């Protein structure tokens, strides 16, 4: 709901609800204070809610926005206690023993939480409910019950959770089938259920029933995780004096990369995704995420940082500036990197959002491991088999990447698409070999209607070459909107064809491709032909010709 406030400020003074789907029905997931004043309640059907509140605005649930907003609340609570568990956006729990002792009792701790979280939820601070009880389940019900208290706080005395839970209906166990059965057996409340002997419950309802029985008696099925939080693996270095040249910064980065990977190695981990962050003397913050197929080696990581610094420090290099603390922009950025900026390898793909240049030297360099895996090590083949060959190839390709640039070396990977060019993605060396467009959707082969049939041409031009595609009278071949070829093709001329082209011996098509009409930059409406051309020197040559907006291009030669 907070997310909806942020996204649409005009909702502040109108009643609105967030809907979610529950089976066949749409129900209220959250309601604004104005809507609640009209009698809208959480869990109510949408239609009923609309009937009660005139002019009710219905908003779709956005789980990722909820998670993002709730993160701020979690961070605020983290200032009080570090051992947090977020069950779902909207619900978090933590063990109270330590912090309660510090603040002088459970009630004071609860008041403290209320004071910290309340202002964040404005204008709806009444929604903050704090419950403290023996286990997480009892605490959650206590928090729900706290809505009835004036202070919105309910503290159940230690050992009193069973008593507190006793009057709740069995439906509160969250297991519909079990609750239905219990009601038919005449056990209407959690207290009735808790009174049954544990052994009988196990015999009759199985282990799942035993778990619910424990919950009804006020025990926590899974005690809160009290393990030490994972160590902070971020490595950073401050550069004094600021580094304005690539080699100075790259030298510092080399040491940083070595330290980071050594610390990861101590824990038996390897890094597959790393975020490189830098700050300039004028407070600009630069971020880029690099991914690697296997675990990064220190040399490979240092090399990536150097490429990155090259891009940042070179004059007029495209970089992305991220405002401080703007986590959302950061996420977008890493999503951008994931989506394969270097899609067709058409050059530098970094930083499509907001192009800018650095205005000073770098003062801070930080490496954040974003994804780590258990390092399985490297096993060389017996007598230097395939693994040795792969390692040799990797070394050579890495060296050429250093010579010609990151995007100059790579491999191809097959993906979905209509034309031979679309169906291949060039992946720079070292990045994971993943297609951008799917080959399979939900276990089925993705359909690409109008796909050019096999065999595939042996030369596909990344940049199509201008050609002349003429009919017998010397006029360009035209195709109408329905895909009818108005005049039969007779001649093809293009500089890439042997002898510059010649008469057409056979042709077929057109395949009409009207693609990405929703995307102004990428949309394309064209007709494609397979053509066999008779040339003097080379005999018959087959090629793929595209007509787009009345102009012909040579896409590929077979």
């Amino acid at each position: 709901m907070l997310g909806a406030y942020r996204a649409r400020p005009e909702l502040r003074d109108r009643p609105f609800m967030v809907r979610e789907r529950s089976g066949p029905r749409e129900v209220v997931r959250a309601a604004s204070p104005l809507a609640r004043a009209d009698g809208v309640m959480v869990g109510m059907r949408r239609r009923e809610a609309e009937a009660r509140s005139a002019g009710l605005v219905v908003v779709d649930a956005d789980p990722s926005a909820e998670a993002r907003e709730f993160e701020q609340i979690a961070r605020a609570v983290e200032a009080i206690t570090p051992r947090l568990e977020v069950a779902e956006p909207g619900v978090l729990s933590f063990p109270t023993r330590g912090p309660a002792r510090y603040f002088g009792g459970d009630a004071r701790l609860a008041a403290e939480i209320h004071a910290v979280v309340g202002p964040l939820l404005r204008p709806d601070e009444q929604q903050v409910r704090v419950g403290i009880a023996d286990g997480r389940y009892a605490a959650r019900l206590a928090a729900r019950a706290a809505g009835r208290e004036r202070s919105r706080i309910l503290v159940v005395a230690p050992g009193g959770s069973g008593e507190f839970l006793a009057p709740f209906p069995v439906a509160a166990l969250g297991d519909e089938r079990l609750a239905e059965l219990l009601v038919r057996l005449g056990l209407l409340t959690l207290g009735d259920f808790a009174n049954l002997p544990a052994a009988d419950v196990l015999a009759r309802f199985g282990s799942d029933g035993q778990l619910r029985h424990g919950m009804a008696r006020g025990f926590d099925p899974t005690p809160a995780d009290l393990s030490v939080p994972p160590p902070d693996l971020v490595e950073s270095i401050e550069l004094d004096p600021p580094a304005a040249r690539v080699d100075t910064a790259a030298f510092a980065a080399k040491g940083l990369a070595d330290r980071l990977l050594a610390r990861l190695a101590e824990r038996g981990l390897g890094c597959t995704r790393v975020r490189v962050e830098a700050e300039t003397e004028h407070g600009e913050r630069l971020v880029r995420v690099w991914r690697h197929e296997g675990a990064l080696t220190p040399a490979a990581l240092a090399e990536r940082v150097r490429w990155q610094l090259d891009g940042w420090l070179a004059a007029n290099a495209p970089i992305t500036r991220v405002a401080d603390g703007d986590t959302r922009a950061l996420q977008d950025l890493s999503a951008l990197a994931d989506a394969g900026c270097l899609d067709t390898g058409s050059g530098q793909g970094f930083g499509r959002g907001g192009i800018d240049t650095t205005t000073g030297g770098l003062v801070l360099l930080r490496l954040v491991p974003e994804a780590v895996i258990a390092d399985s090590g490297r096993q060389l083949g017996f007598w230097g088999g395939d693994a040795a060959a792969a390692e040799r190839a990797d070394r050579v390709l890495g060296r050429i990447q250093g010579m010609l640039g990151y995007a100059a070396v790579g491999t191809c990977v097959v993906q979905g698409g209509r034309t031979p060019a679309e169906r291949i993605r060039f992946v720079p060396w070292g990045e994971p070999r993943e297609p951008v467009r799917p080959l399979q959707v939900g276990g089925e082969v993705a359909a690409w209607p109008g796909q050019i049939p096999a065999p595939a041409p042996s030369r596909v031009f990344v940049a199509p070459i201008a050609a002349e595609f003429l009919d017998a009278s010397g006029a360009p071949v035209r195709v109408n909107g329905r895909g009818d070829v108005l005049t039969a093709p007779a001649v093809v001329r293009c500089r890439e064809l042997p002898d510059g082209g010649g008469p057409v011996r056979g042709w077929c098509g057109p395949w009409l491709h009207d693609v990405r009409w929703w995307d102004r930059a990428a949309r394309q409406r064209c007709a494609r032909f397979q053509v066999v051309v008779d040339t003097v020197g080379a005999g018959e040559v087959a090629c793929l010709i595209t007509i787009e907006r009345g102009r012909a291009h040579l896409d590929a030669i077979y």
Partner: protein
Amino acid sequence: MVRAHERALMVGGALGELLPGGCLRRGSVIHLHGAQRSALQLALLAAVTRSGEWAAIVESRDGPADFAGLAALEAGVDLERCALVRAVPRERWAVVVGALLEGMTMVVAPVPAYARPADARRLLARARERQAMLVVTGGSWPVDAALRIRAGRGVWHGLEPGEGLLRSCDVHVVVDGKGAPRRACVDLFERAG
């Protein structure tokens, strides 16, 4: 010590029958020319990558970028072990090809018009030393090549004016190595899968 059979790479199909011994010899230079040489180079790449070896293709900045990944896949090339080096500038050509020969079993590179005999000899020596194959395509290779293959005139089947689909192509292939040249019509588009 490298034994003789480890030095050769078997090539299957109609193309293999044309080659001396049905195989490609390591540590040698192969020159491909003729209009259909692109289809021919994919057949050679397939032979190398399918046996678990690595290969690389060099594209010059002066020519069009035209590597066909899909056709390579149809020809049986293992794309994972087939690296593509794009837009190599004129002055780096010999250096890049030389570096690739260090780590790859086969390096396919178009012969630039500016290839100097001294560079060519150096690359030949490098290929021999590293037991790698250098496949040069088009243009004229200024020094000796162990094998010269020409994929010349082709005849296409399956397509008529306004109907049918491209199906297969008989290419006139001439292999010029030791002894008399061998020639045959080979369907280079008869691909695995």
